[in-house]
């Protein structure tokens, strides 16, 4: 009970402090463990620390004793956009404010016997952080100026060894999701030459709301050289019904127009939406040709086709209800990583390719999804007299391919997006 209460406190803490961003396809975040990330996330088969709670709960039975794990990644994002005609036009460039995000991870594992283990974790497997610079003149301000999506997952999993070589795991996920979208409403200046003016700041905000899902996993260790793993996390749908919508008028300086806008401005009111977090399945194979080397290849599929639309439903002004079509497609991710355990430290490296999930029409200033190439480098140390401390660090250089909307964006906002993400992560675990 005490653990439960403190875990809840951490969840709230994490939620408050964790504006997050997508560094995987769509709004997924794969940065959930420094050691596995050193191997580019290829850890479904070989994970051997407490981040097994996320990567493969069936591996929990291979972790001796108890462990407590605290980690985090500093993600620094660089996003920009260059427009084309007819909208927003050639020569137009936009950029996001450089983002700094710290999605945290906390895990706890306990092996009760050779056959039973459990683990609990808190992490942020989904998130989005968008913050376009100079919002009042940003050419995509009608859609979004600033947005955050938080998905803080509390997870409890059990692992059971069917045989010494084969174990299974299953667990329960409670995903607390919150969202905030800011945009600037523009309106045609009446009787004008077609000019539009900023008339209101629109803020749609939904507080953290839980959705529930489950996970299952398998790990097979046929001999000392080979490990295979599979993990599945179910989709989670979160209905946010108690969001707040506020409309703050922006005066244009034209009193005639402002008076009409004021008369037509909707009141502050409730807003609801449905956030969809897709299922993920990962399979991996790890090979240790010698006791000090491990190589792993993982394939991950995320069922992004779940994210078909984003409804926005107002409590009072129903005429403003909208459904943003997304029509995402399932996406694949392939990762290859290696770990070399030396006497003083361990080093790791890896590469992953993450396919885009958004179709070309849905590449928007809210979610400029694109294919990504991640290159990682990791280091690990075992510390303490009894080797009870483990410190891992990694760096991810995430090269996001420039993605053009090819003139097909749904709202006619066309151009090319560029992004780069650097992630630096650290974790500290204590075993006893």
């Amino acid at each position, binding site marked *: 009970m005490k653990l439960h209460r403190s875990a809840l406190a951490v969840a709230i803490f994490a939620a408050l402090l964790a504006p997050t961003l997508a560094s995987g396809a769509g709004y997924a975040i794969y940065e959930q463990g420094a050691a596995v990330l050193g191997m580019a996330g290829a850890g479904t088969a070989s994970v051997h620390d407490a981040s097994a709670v996320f990567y493969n709960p069936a591996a929990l039975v291979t972790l001796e004793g108890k462990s407590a794990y605290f980690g985090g990644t500093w993600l620094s994002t660089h996003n920009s956009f260059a427009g084309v005609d007819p909208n927003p036009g050639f020569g137009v460039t936009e950029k996001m404010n450089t983002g700094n995000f710290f999605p945290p991870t906390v895990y706890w594992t306990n092996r009760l016997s050779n056959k039973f283990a459990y683990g609990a974790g808190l992490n942020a497997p989904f998130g989005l952080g968008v913050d376009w610079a100079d919002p009042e003149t940003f050419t995509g301000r009608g859609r979004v100026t600033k947005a955050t999506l938080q998905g803080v997952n509390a997870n409890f999993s059990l692992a059971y060894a069917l045989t010494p070589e084969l174990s299974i795991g299953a667990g329960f996920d409670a995903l607390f999701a919150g969202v905030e979208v800011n945009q600037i409403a523009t309106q045609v200046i009446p009787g004008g030459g077609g000019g539009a003016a900023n008339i209101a700041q629109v803020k749609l905000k939904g507080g953290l709301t839980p959705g529930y899902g489950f996970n299952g996993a398998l790990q097979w260790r046929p001999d000392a050289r080979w490990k295979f793993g599979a993990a599945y996390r179910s989709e989670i749908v979160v209905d946010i019904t108690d969001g707040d919508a506020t409309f703050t008028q922006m005066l244009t300086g034209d009193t*005639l127009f402002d008076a009409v806008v004021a008369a037509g401005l909707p009141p502050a009111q409730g807003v609801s939406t449905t956030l969809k977090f897709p299922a993920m399945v990962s399979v991996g194979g790890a090979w240790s040709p010698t006791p000090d080397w491990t190589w792993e290849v993982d394939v991950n599929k995320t069922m992004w086709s779940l994210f078909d639309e984003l409804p926005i439903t107002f409590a009072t002004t129903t005429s403003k209800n909208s459904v943003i079509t997304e029509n995402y497609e399932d996406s694949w991710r392939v990762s290859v990583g290696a770990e070399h355990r030396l006497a003083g430290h361990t080093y790791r490296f890896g590469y992953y390719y993450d396919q885009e999930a958004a179709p070309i029409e849905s590449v928007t200033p809210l979610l400029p999804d694109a294919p990504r190439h991640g290159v990682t480098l990791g280091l690990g140390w075992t510390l303490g007299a009894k080797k009870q401390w483990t410190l891992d660090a990694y760096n991810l250089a995430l090269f996001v391919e420039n993605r053009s909307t090819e003139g097909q964006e749904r709202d006619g906002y066309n151009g090319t997006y560029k992004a780069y993400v650097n992630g630096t992560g650290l974790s500290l675990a204590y075993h006893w």
Partner: protein
Amino acid sequence: MKKHLRLTPILLLAAFVAGCQGPCDSIDSITGPQLTSGTADFTTYVAAGTSISAGYQSGGIVDRHQTNAFPAIFARQIGKTVLQNGQGDFTFPSMGHDGFPQLLAIKSFSPLIINNTGRTLGYPAANYNQATSYQNLGVPGAIAFDFADTTRYHATADPNMFSVVARYRGTIAQQMLGQAPTFVTYEYGANEVLGSATSGGAIAVFPASSYAALLTGHMNAIHATLPNTKVAIFTVPDVASIPFCTTFKPYTVMIATGAVVELKGPNGDLSPNDLVLLTAKDSLAAGTGFPVGAYNYLNPAAPGNGRPLTNTQVLNVAEQTAIRTAAGLMNTAVDSVATRPFVVKVDMAALLSSMAADGYTVGATHYTTSFVTGGLFSLDGVHPTDLGHAILANALVDAVNAKFGAGVPRANVNDYMSATASASRPAMPENVLPGMRVDGLDTGLRALFGNRW
């Protein structure tokens, strides 16, 4: 020593992060494609046409909007210099002040008052004495007949736009061909049907067969004189879908019962598809056209008086049919001529239909063909705004590129969203003379505004 070795990789990582170049830099802007002309030649461009070509909007022509008429935008896209004073290499009769006639302006939203009271009449000061013909020979009110015939030039009512544009220098055709243009836009046809539409059918539609003959004859004449010149021609839009015709509904409700009831026209109750024209505004505001006891949606203070609207205030279904039939025949003629290798069709009719049905979205701003609030039509309810012109210019660009294998860059529509269609709106004076005054439209306007974004 050993500890230092352990820190080295971390320092390397930190250096990597701090020194991020290239991937961390913002994207370079994208420049538009370079102009290519394909089989067309854009050395000399001359535009002939109607008020649309002239850049007439909100009831007049003024330099600020003449520079954004679709021929001017197209000229800019093919590398010409278009200047507000009408000079540069795409010249036109530049009108200063508040336009010729003075442009309409919104004086008040509640009640909606639109007029040009107190505005200064413009005149073609900058280049009226230009020694050569203008490149933009668009004349408000012109029909295809006027292209090569001066009969109507000096017979039309004041203000006589022919004297401003043609300046007694010969026919439009002569002035065009005299410049030996390599590319021509020929935009006629709208006025052949517009007169009928805006007069509620009182003016007959110009015979479609005559238009067809004129069109064919003019194309032959241009081709005979300038065999290498390419010509863009325009289909005739459905003028019954412009705000002038669609703003007022032909029905209302009974105050007592809420039952839907038709407005009254010259021949009894209107049908649901009859169009009440903008010119009925004063009658409607007084309660005319509304049955006794009916809600006056324009001016609730004046409930229906039971008197009928006049014939010129209503475009009934039969009149609409006559207009559409004529426009259809005219467009058949356009299609026929457009099969010739030197002629390209710009489907203005399809463009307007699409706008009327679905509007037009730029970013998250949605534009419609609604009067005053829609953003695509100016305050006269007939002529497009600068943005409407930019969209039309892009249709021209697309058609030219497709037919002649050219690479004319499309215009950036954002550059044509001017703040107003009538220069700046003056502050509302206390005693506004009842010019084009529409009292009580504010409630309806608010409803329109409420759904804009």
